[in-house]
């Protein structure tokens, strides 16, 4: 059983998925942050593959990716880092990146490598459902990897069902129509969308992302889904220059609402 399936088999509520960009703030921080996140009580990690042209990402994640690339981060290096840290951690790891990166590495080679180093799932926001179904579904399922497709407030019911059929692990529920890093609370309109999705008979758990940035928005999101995904707010916390282990621990505690240690 894949670590993702294991997680969702024993935990259905308050799942905290934290995103960060591999190789940020410093190239050797990837492994440190993964271990610190596990220790601090995150349930799941979405590891960003830094990309030159991240279309769905706002300025915070864009800049973290630019910095990571400047630091010398590459996909082969990322795989090495994951392999090294995998011996010390059991937290589920999901890779997030853009499909061009997978294409250039070679689709089958990429999947094989993910399995070999201990990656559990994929999020490729610009891989369309049609292309996935036509060319890659069999490959991904054979590899035993999870894959999460996105839904948004504009996604039709018919398409949500398709997303549910193709996703394995969890569905990524985009909270509002935006790029990542949006600020502000959760509106009634968004709540109505969360409730609408909740009424559908879906096989996959749902995690809400985009605009989840603090304890309050995390708690609200958890009331309407199995958990939430936080990215830009964590990147901002890492950018403050504190030691990454300490910054990670404080951030996770603040999201969980258990107070920050001295």
């Amino acid at each position, binding site marked *: 059983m894949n670590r993702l399936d294991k997680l969702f088999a024993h935990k259905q509520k308050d799942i905290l998925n934290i995103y960060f960009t591999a190789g940020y703030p410093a190239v050797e921080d990837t492994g440190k942050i993964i271990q610190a996140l596990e220790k601090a009580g995150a349930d799941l990690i979405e590891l960003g593959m830094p*990309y*030159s*042209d991240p*279309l*769905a990402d*706002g*300025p915070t994640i*864009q800049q973290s990716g*630019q910095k990571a*690339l400047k630091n010398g981060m*590459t*996909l*082969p290096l990322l795989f090495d880092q994951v392999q090294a840290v995998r011996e010390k951690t059991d937290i589920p790891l999901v890779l997030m990146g*853009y*499909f*061009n*990166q*997978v*294409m*250039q*590495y070679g689709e089958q080679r990429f999947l094989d490598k993910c399995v070999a180093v201990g990656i559990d799932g994929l999020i490729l*926001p*610009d*891989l*369309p459902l*049609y*292309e996935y179904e036509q060319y890659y579904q069999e490959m991904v399922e054979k590899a035993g990897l999870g894959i999460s*497709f*996105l*839904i*948004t407030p*504009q*996604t039709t019911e018919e*398409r949500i069902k398709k997303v549910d059929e193709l996703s394995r692990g969890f569905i990524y529920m*985009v909270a509002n*129509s*935006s*790029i990542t890093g949006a600020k502000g609370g959760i509106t009634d309109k968004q709540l109505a969308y969360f409730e609408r999705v909740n009424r559908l008979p879906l096989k996959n758990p749902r995690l809400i992302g985009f605009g989840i940035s603090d304890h309050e928005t995390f708690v609200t999101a958890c009331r309407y889904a199995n958990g939430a995904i936080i990215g830009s707010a964590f990147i901002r916390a890492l950018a403050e220059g504190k030691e990454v282990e300490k910054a990670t621990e404080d951030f996770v505690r603040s999201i969980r609402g258990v107070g920050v240690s001295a």
Partner: protein
Amino acid sequence: MIAINEKGYYGEFGGAYIPEMLHPNIEELRQQYVQVMEEPAFQREFRHLLKDYVGRPSPLYLAERLSGHYKATIYLKREDLNHTGAHKINNTIGQILMARRLGKTRIIAETGAGQHGVATATVCALMGIQCIVYMGAVDIKRQAPNVSRMRMLGAEVRPATSGSQTLKDATNEAIRDWINNPVDTHYIIGSVVGPHPYPDMVARFQSVISEEMKWQLEEQTGRENPDAIVACVGGGSNAAGAYYHYLNEKEVRLIAVEAAGHGIHSGESAATSVLGTKGIIHGSRTLLMQTPDGQITEPYSLSAGLDYPGIGPLHAHLIASGRAEAISITDDEALASAFFLSRKEGIIPALETAHAFAALDKMEYSPEDVIVVCLSGRGDKDLDTYIQHFDRF
């Protein structure tokens, strides 16, 4: 037969590699664009504006002095004489009418040289619709007159400060804006790039260029088909328009002219057909310049309109299948050609267009050949650049 399939592929190139947030917009367009374009009322309005507002048909001019120099019959398709000074407006007229039919009230666009930005600002003023143009911060500096024109036309010009701060990044910012404004906004892409259906929709709007070439050539030479059509390719919209009705006429050679910057292998180039590999840029599977790790490379060309690391999927298909021939032209060759055309025919071309003319020195042809060069834009916007090189030419 060269045609796009239902999923938006020309051969193996094309498709719609977009985040889910854009799916409703792209799907709405995909389902409606052909139907809307074929409505008689749409066609009437489109044709009327092309004629009375843009000034079409654009002349097909027999360039006698140029023909004498090159020892062939050379015609110029005068897109530089269109309102706003380039072919870009053919597409923006079409897309603004499309946006209105889809009920959109806010327009966004990207621009490199500023020609597409000006053409978009122009049609938005014409229709009274809000207009926001994303432009790389670097391009804002090197194309100052066009920035002022956009502002005078009432558009807001927003600098793209990410990445290389040129056309690629302006396009990223426009796409991000569209993700953030999915309901009221239409994105007027300026070239035959982006997710399906954009490459096909833009090519269809620009196809008026080759539609006119056919009857104009027939009138002037007694035959519809030239031996070769030469056009510059950044994303490739003027080339797509000039090729469109000849795509399946195999005897017509299609010459795609790319920017080689300081030289194809100088590390400062935008010659995508040579340096590019298969990948995804701006939602389309095509040829693009990238690192082995799949990071999109920052291209270089003195010409802002050709300074783009990809090409439209139609062109990737035409080049990969051998239907089109690619020729690369350096900054210096383009500059020399701009001065040469100015003095030979009294036409100051855009720097992008000058690349197409420079290809006449590199291609092979025989004296009885009829060659059409798509004179895609006029050079007023590039005067500052040209002035800097007065002492050399």
